């Protein structure tokens, strides 16, 4: 990366670089200001309630964990895109940092897609110096665990971060073990789907200690997510279940409403947000794929950014792309000032 700075072309504004950089920056700004900030209002109250010892319902806990899962991704990848975009405006290319991590079909794959610059640093300066996989299977697993725990501590000095790192260390150990046993097996679509689902769920669970402020907060939220507090279904379902003779152990299934703690305004809107962002994170092409023809970032692994099947989706300097980018820039600018203080609101 550094040799770029010695080139004369860097530091000079060029319309081509400006166009590419501006587009990447606009996409990043939209991810941060509209998507990440938009869903954050559904994550914070759930984690606050867990810290306060509120008995969360199964669905509240999952909605909070999922909301945070997407908040963190769109926030961080948005910032990364903005950095890539600004650098590109001046003709500089930075390393790729996010590559659709929630499309990963294994934890090993996840760490090749999430915060790539950090995982590369951890691999080169911790895992490999510790011996990596060169000193046998047992040492490899120990090295993985040490690397991930220290990676957790890199994010903050707290037991919750240690727990997060240890969880990922454990995930990686299991993943490597699985690979060793099932190596060479062909992939099926159904198998890939299950691999994705398990990976995604494991990642969502791991974000709980990452976001929580204390171990008791983690415990409260995980208890609710695993159904220890029971599973509360909509009140109006009770009659239907009773009519069909579907009876459940009293303590496991109740009919007090899915979100009966009323942690945020409109539960339906919260669910819509979560599904929308799930759709974007798992089905939509990422910024690097859209801009692939213009090589927006250095790749860490060869062929890292997969080419899009549909050429029409790739970014080009067309009127429709210009209008689309204009709209997302405008919405982002309008969202920057947050809640208007001049609006009439209750308190």
């Amino acid at each position, binding site marked *: 990366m550094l040799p770029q700075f010695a080139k004369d072309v860097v530091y000079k504004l060029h319309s081509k670089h400006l166009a590419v950089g501006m587009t990447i920056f606009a996409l990043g700004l939209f991810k941060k200001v509209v998507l990440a900030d938009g869903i954050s209002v559904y994550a914070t*109250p759930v984690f*606050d309630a867990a810290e*306060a010892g509120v008995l969360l319902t199964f669905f509240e806990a999952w909605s909070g964990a999922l909301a945070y899962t997407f908040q963190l991704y769109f926030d961080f990848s948005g910032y990364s895109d903005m950095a890539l975009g600004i650098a590109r405006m001046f003709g500089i290319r930075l390393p790729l940092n996010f590559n659709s991590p929630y499309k990963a079909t294994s934890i090993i794959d996840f760490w090749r897609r999430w915060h790539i610059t950090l995982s590369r640093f951890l691999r080169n300066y911790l895992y490999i110096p510790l011996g990596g996989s060169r000193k046998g299977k047992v040492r490899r697993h120990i090295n993985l665990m040490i690397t991930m725990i220290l990676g957790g501590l890199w994010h903050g000095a707290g037991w919750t971060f240690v727990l997060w790192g240890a969880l990922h260390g454990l995930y990686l150990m299991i993943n490597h073990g699985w690979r060793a046993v099932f190596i060479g097996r062909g992939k099926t679509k159904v198998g890939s789907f299950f691999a994705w689902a398990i990976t995604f769920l494991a990642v969502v669970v791991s974000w709980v200690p990452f976001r929580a402020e204390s171990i008791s907060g983690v415990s409260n939220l995980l208890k609710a997510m695993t159904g220890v507090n029971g599973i509360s279904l909509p009140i109006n379902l009770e009659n239907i279940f009773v009519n069909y003779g579907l009876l459940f152990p009293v303590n496991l299934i109740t009919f007090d409403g899915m979100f009966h703690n009323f942690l945020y305004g409109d539960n339906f809107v919260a669910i819509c947000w979560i599904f929308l962002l799930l759709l974007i994170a798992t089905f939509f092409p990422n910024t690097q794929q859209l801009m692939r023809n213009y090589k927006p970032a250095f790749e860490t692994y060869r062929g890292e950014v997969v080419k899009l099947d549909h050429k029409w989706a790739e970014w080009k*300097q067309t009127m429709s792309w210009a*209008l689309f980018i204009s709209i997302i820039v405008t919405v982002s600018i*309008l969202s920057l000032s947050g809640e208007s203080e001049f609006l009439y609101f209750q*308190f």
Partner: protein
Amino acid sequence: MNSKSYLKIIFLFVIFLLVVTALINYIVDPGNIYTKYSSNKNKLTPAVYIKKLLESNYGLLMPKNTWNERDLKKTLAEYPINYDCAIIGSSRIQQISSNRQNKSLVGTCSDMKNLSVPGATLEDYLAMSNVILKNTEFMPRTIVFGIDPWSFNFGRDKRWVRYEQDYLEMKSTLFKRHPSTHLNNNSNKDLLINLFNFQYLKRSLSVLFKTDILIVPAPEFNHSKGLDFDVMLKDGSRIFNGLYINKTKNSINTVSGNDAYSKYKIIANSFSQDEAIKIFKKLVRHLKISKINIVFVLTPYHHSVWNYPSQSIVRSIELIEKKVHEIAEQYKARVIGSYNPINIGCLENEFYDSIHPMDTCLIKLESNMTVH
């Protein structure tokens, strides 16, 4: 298309969209902050609303996002009608009423105008006091200040700029200076930024296509259950809507003293400003000279808030309560209530959330009274 054209189109189209947004926000102006009810098709003004309110039997509905409450309360304060007490404060005392089924402050006020507004701060105290004093023929015998833990600070909210001129007039009266006629730069900047606010645009668009009737009398109803909309009673007090009441009833067990809401407007290590206390004392002295009795009301915080004694909120509450008693002693004012619910016998289920007590709690306020 080449890069320059691409960039030009983006630049021009963004400017176009921003201008359109600003125009919509300025012309529709759902908060009525740029123009005085210019967008109101029926020429309905706060004066019409207040007249209808006082003629009503059970109050008027307050559809959300229609009226600016500071305009309504200012108009109510100006209305030529005799009354005993003016209540000035935040949403924490909006339930205090001489009209609702559970009457509060009955030992202090025979009747009242509840002029409290959401997010009230020190600047609101000055502005509303100015409005009251200007209505020389219809001045109240007593002004009740709902003092909040954030009250002795400047700039804890911006909504008071709605009657900034009244604030400036009162400030110049207190400091014996000519009133400034200029809005401060910060207000202008905020108003300008607000033109490009997405939330305000959404509200503008909803108002633009809204068919709600702005003045609807409330039917006779049970105040503890509420209606579909909030209701303003004849004395200016507020009854929350049924949805909100039910929501809080169901969620009362989750009220947390450690949540962000309990820390509303509280900034750690900045609980009060000397200048703010100085100007508040000047205001109290000025009102006393105008032969108005002064009462301070301390509205309780939920019990759960007190479980965190080391938190800024509790330290702030204790400090400000002490400060209020000192000021009351200095100016021979009465203090009613306490931030601690145990002192006045409020129960845990007599709150909407961590900072808003229900009327059943507010009727007990006078059980804790200190006359200095």
